[in-house]
């Protein structure tokens, strides 16, 4: 299973609970041990952004990597058009809006029409999601996507803590230790960070 797929599966199966909103930390369990992710402090925000910028410049100087724009151009030469995907997405978004307006005006007494339109909306949203995922897969090899992915990895390393003898301590002492950490634990930490930052930033 691809790492991204594993992450999506983890996000879907997370145990959502009320404590997630009580403060800006989320606790979770892994192999009977307690862990938590928390919102980054200002200094950590700076650190992770600096790391991100350094990687961006490094990859930009490397001829083996392409920016999103260059990748889109390369795809075009292979007859894969990202702008077609964007156009398809916009067309579905317009259909979605019109269907929603139609649904909003249906009275409760017309249950059949309501159910049909709800089904139509779900189908349209699925189509839009399919297009988005296609685009994400195609662009995952761009410098921007790689840098964004690294941002979340580094963030997971910085803000994941483990409960030991009643104290919350940093889960991984170094980034190298994090990189060699258990894949599932790393995946869980990233999945919870995605939820913690939900709406502010999303990775998958």
């Amino acid at each position, binding site marked *: 299973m691809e790492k991204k797929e594993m992450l999506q599966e983890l996000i879907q199966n*997370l145990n*959502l609970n*009320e404590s*997630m*909103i*009580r*403060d*800006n930390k989320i606790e979770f369990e892994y192999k009977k041990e307690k862990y938590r992710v928390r*919102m980054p*402090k200002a200094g950590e925000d700076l650190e992770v952004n600096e790391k991100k910028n350094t990687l961006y410049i490094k990859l930009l100087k490397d001829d083996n990597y392409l920016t999103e724009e260059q990748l889109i151009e390369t795809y075009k030469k292979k007859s894969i058009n990202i702008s077609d995907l964007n156009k398809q997405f916009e067309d579905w978004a317009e259909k979605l*809006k019109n*269907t*929603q*307006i139609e*649904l*909003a*005006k249906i009275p*409760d007494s017309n249950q059949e029409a*309501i159910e049909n*339109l*709800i089904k139509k*909306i*779900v189908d349209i949203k699925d189509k839009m999601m399919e297009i988005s995922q296609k685009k994400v897969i195609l662009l995952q090899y761009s410098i921007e996507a790689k840098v964004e992915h690294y941002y979340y990895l580094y963030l997971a390393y910085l803000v994941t803590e483990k409960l030991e003898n009643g104290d919350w301590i940093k889960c991984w002492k170094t980034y190298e230790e994090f990189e060699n950490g258990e894949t599932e634990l790393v995946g869980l930490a990233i999945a919870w960070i995605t*939820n*913690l*930052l*939900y*709406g*502010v*930033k999303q990775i998958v």
Partner: protein
Amino acid sequence: MSIETYIRKLARTTYYQLLYQNAKELRLSLFENKLNLSGIQIIFTYWLRTYGQLYENITLDEYLNIKVINNDIRLDAYLVLKKEERKKEKLEMARQKIKDKLNKSMDNVSETTFYQKKV
């Protein structure tokens, strides 16, 4: 259940609605942290406010009722409709403003012409 569905379900509960409505007066804090709100907390606050406003308007709008509020797809549809209505209203107001301005300047022109003729 997606996180958005979960947050919305939580935000429309009587408990959180009451807490949100009385938080200021009773000096209650919605969250343990006052600063550095997480993404979930920001989204949750948005839905608390939105549901609060919807509950207030429930008797004023023909398209709004408790069944709509409790169904995310139907509620999204309702919110899109309202957004479109507001957009149309704004456009109409802007059109009316231009029309009024044009009428005013036309009045000025005819007034000037009248005085010029008189002189």
